[in-house]
C-alpha cells in the first residue's frame, strides 16, 4: 500500500525558528564552560589552571546573551516577564526564568570574587575615571589581605560546587523541554535531557580549547600542552558518552520500530541525511574521536596534539550545533499527521533570521573581548597554583 503525502494545514508553519536552535546551543556552552572551571576550582585539576578564569568568564559572557534568542523568538516579547510574574509550575519554560536567574547570580558573584583582588589592585594603582570604574566594580570591598583572599577562595569553591548542579539543571531542563513533548516522537524520549547535558559539556570544553589556542596565538604565546591535553582527554571522554547515548537512542527507536518509525526513518534518511549522518555522526563525532586520541600519548609532537585537538574542537562545535539543529528543526519537518514533510523557512534579514543568529553568536565573543580588556582573564600556567592561593 502506498501513501500520498499529507500534512495538517497549520503544520506548514513551523513555529520554532533558528533562534530555538541557538538557545540550547548557547546555554550548552554556558554549562560546559562552567564545568571546566569547576574541574579546577572544585576538583583541583591543576592542569586546567590556564583556562580556569577564561572558562568562568566565557560562561558568564554566553550566559548574558542566553535569553536574547528567546526574546527574539517570542511573538509578544513585551510580555516576557509574565514567565516570572505568572509562572505555571507545570510548564518547563516557566522554570527557565528561575533557573537562569539563580545560575546568573552564582556566576556573577563567583566571577566577582575571583577577580576582586585584581579589581582592587587596579583601583589602587590607577587614577581618574579608570580608578573610579574599578572602585565601583570593587563594591567598596577593598580588603585584599591574605586572610580576606582565603575567605574569597573558600566562597569561590562553595559557589563552584553550587554552580555544578545548577548548570546541570539549566541544561538538563533544556533537554526536558523537548523530551517531554509527547506529541513529537522525534523529541519524546527520557534520554533527551541527558543527551543535551552531555553534549553541552562537550561543546563547552571544545569552545575553551579553541578560545585558549586562539588567545595564545594572538598573544604570541604557546598554549600549554598539559592544559590542552587534559581538556582534550576530558573532551574525548564526554564525546564518547554523548555519541553513545545519541546512538543508543536512535538504535532503540529503530529496533522498537513503533508506529511512528516510518516517518522518523524517512526524516533521517531523506531530510536529515547531511546534517545528521554526515555532519553530526561522521564529521562531527567519529573524526574528532580519532583526532582526540593523539592527546593520550606523550610520544607525539606537541604541535600535532595542538592541531588535532583544535581541529577536533572545531568539528565538535559544528557537531553540537548540528545536533541542536537536528532536534529542533528535524522535529518540525514532519507533520503531526505523520504522513508528510514540510519546508523549514530560512531567511537572512528577518528578526529570527540567519543574520540575527550570526550576530547573537558573535555577541558573547565580543563581550569576552571587552571582559578581557577590563579583567585579567589570562592566567599563565607558570603562575601561582590553586594550592598556593589556598
Amino acid at each position, binding site marked *: 500500500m502506498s501513501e500520498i503525502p499529507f500534512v495538517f494545514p497549520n503544520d506548514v508553519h513551523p513555529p520554532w525558528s533558528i533562534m530555538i536552535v541557538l538557545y540550547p546551543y548557547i546555554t550548552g556552552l554556558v554549562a560546559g564552560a562552567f564545568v571546566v572551571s569547576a574541574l579546577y576550582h572544585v576538583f583541583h585539576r591543576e592542569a586546567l589552571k590556564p583556562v580556569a578564569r577564561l572558562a568562568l568568564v566565557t560562561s558568564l559572557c554566553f550566559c548574558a546573551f542566553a535569553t536574547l534568542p528567546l526574546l527574539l523568538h517570542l511573538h509578544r516579547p513585551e510580555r516576557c516577564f509574565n514567565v516570572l510574574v505568572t509562572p505555571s509550575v507545570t510548564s518547563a519554560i516557566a522554570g527557565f526564568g528561575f533557573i537562569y536567574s539563580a545560575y546568573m547570580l552564582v556566576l556573577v558573584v563567583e566571577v566577582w570574587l575571583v577577580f576582586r583582588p585584581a579589581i582592587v589592585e587596579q583601583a589602587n594603582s590607577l587614577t581618574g575615571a579608570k580608578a573610579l570604574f574599578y572602585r565601583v566594580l570593587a563594591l567598596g570591598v577593598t580588603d585584599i589581605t591574605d586572610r580576606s583572599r582565603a575567605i574569597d577562595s573558600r566562597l569561590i569553591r562553595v559557589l563552584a560546587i553550587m554552580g555544578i548542579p545548577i548548570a546541570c539543571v539549566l541544561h538538563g531542563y533544556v533537554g526536558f523541554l523537548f523530551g517531554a*513533548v509527547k506529541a513529537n516522537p522525534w523529541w519524546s524520549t527520557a534520554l533527551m535531557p541527558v543527551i543535551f547535558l552531555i553534549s553541552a559539556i562537550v561543546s563547552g570544553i571544545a569552545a575553551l580549547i579553541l578560545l585558549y589556542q586562539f588567545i595564545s596565538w594572538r598573544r604570541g604565546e604557546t598554549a600549554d600542552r598539559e592544559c590542552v591535553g587534559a581538556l582534550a582527554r576530558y573532551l574525548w571522554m564526554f564525546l564518547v558518552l554523548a555519541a553513545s547515548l545519541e546512538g543508543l537512542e536512535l538504535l532503540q527507536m529503530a529496533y522498537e520500530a513503533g508506529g511512528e518509525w516510518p516517518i522518523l526513518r524517512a526524516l533521517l534518511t531523506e531530510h536529515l541525511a547531511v546534517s545528521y549522518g554526515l555532519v553530526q555522526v561522521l564529521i562531527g563525532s567519529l573524526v574528532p574521536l580519532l583526532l582526540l586520541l593523539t592527546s593520550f600519548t606523550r610520544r607525539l609532537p606537541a604541535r600535532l596534539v595542538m592541531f588535532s585537538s583544535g581541529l577536533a574542537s572545531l568539528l565538535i562545535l559544528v557537531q553540537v550545533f548540528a545536533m541542536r539543529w537536528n532536534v529542533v528543526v528535524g522535529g*518540525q519537518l514532519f507533520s503531526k499527521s505523520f504522513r508528510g514533510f514540510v519546508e523549514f523557512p530560512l531567511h537572512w534579514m528577518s528578526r529570527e533570521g540567519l543574520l540575527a543568529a550570526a550576530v547573537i553568536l558573535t555577541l558573547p565573543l565580543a563581550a569576552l573581548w571587552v571582559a578581557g580588556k577590563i579583567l585579567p582573564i589570562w592566567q599563565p600556567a607558570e603562575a601561582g597554583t590553586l594550592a598556593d592561593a589556598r
Partner: protein
Amino acid sequence: MVELEVIGGANGQCGGSSDPCESAGCQCDSAESDSRRQFLQQASTFALGAVSLTLFPVSVAEGEPAGGAGGGLGTDAQPPMYGFLVDTEKCIGSGKCLTACRVENDVPEGYQRTWVERYVHFKDGTVQVDLVPETGYAGSDQPPIDPEQVERAYFVPKLCNHCEDAPCNQVCPVHASFTSPEGFELIDTERCIGCAYCVQACPYGTRFINPDTGTADKCTWCYHRVMRDEDPACVEACPVGARLFGRVDDPDSEISQRIAAIPTSVLKAHLGTHPKTRYLGISDEVT
C-alpha cells in the same frame, strides 16, 4: 475577547468580596474601626488579587461559575459540561463549516481552526489523504476522482479536541492556556507571550500562532456563541448534521444519547490526552 471575560469575571469576583458586617446586619459606629476595617478589607483584597494574578489565576477562574456571558446556561451549582461528536458517516465534504469558522472567528488566511480531511482508498492500494477546499470540491479547480477507481472514501472533520488532560495547557508557561469552568480549552490572548510551546505540544496540529495577534490561536468550540445559547458556527453551518455539539452532563441531550448508543472513539488515544471531541466511523489510519 471572550476568553478574557472568564478571567476578568473571576478576578472581579475575587476583588469584590462582600462586607461580613453588612451581611450579618450589624452596625459599626466607630469611624476609626470603619476606616481600619476598610483598610484591612482593601489590603486583603489587594493581596488576594495579587496572589490570584500571580500564582493561581487559572485555578481561581476554574473555581468560579461562568461569569458574564456564561449566565445564560446552566443555573446548577455545577457548570454545564459540553462535548462534540463528529459523525464521519454523515460528512459530505461540503466545506460549509470551514467558511463559517473563518468568518465567525476571523481566522487568518493560511491557517485553520478546523479543517476536513478526505481519505480515499483506491483499488490499486494507494491511499490519498487531502484537504477539502473551503468551496467544497464542486467549487474548486481540483480534478475529480474517477469513482470507478475508488474502493472506499470518507471525510474526517478536524478541530480542537478540548482534551481533559490537555498537553497544550500543561506546557503553557504563563497560564494563558486554561480550562474554562465548562471544560473548554481556551487561550487568554492578553496573557499569551507567543512562545508557541503549546503549538508544539498539541498532538493534533490544531494550534497556530496567529500572525495578526502574535498569540496562540485555535478552535474554541465557539465558546462565545455557546455562552449565548447558540451552537458553534461549524455545527450550525453543517448541512447534514455531521457535527453535533451539546451538553454531555445531560443524559437526555442528543449528543449524550448518541454517545451512549453507538461506539465512538478519540484521536491518538494512546497519548492519554482524553479528548472531549469524539468521532464516529473512523479507522485507526486517522491521525
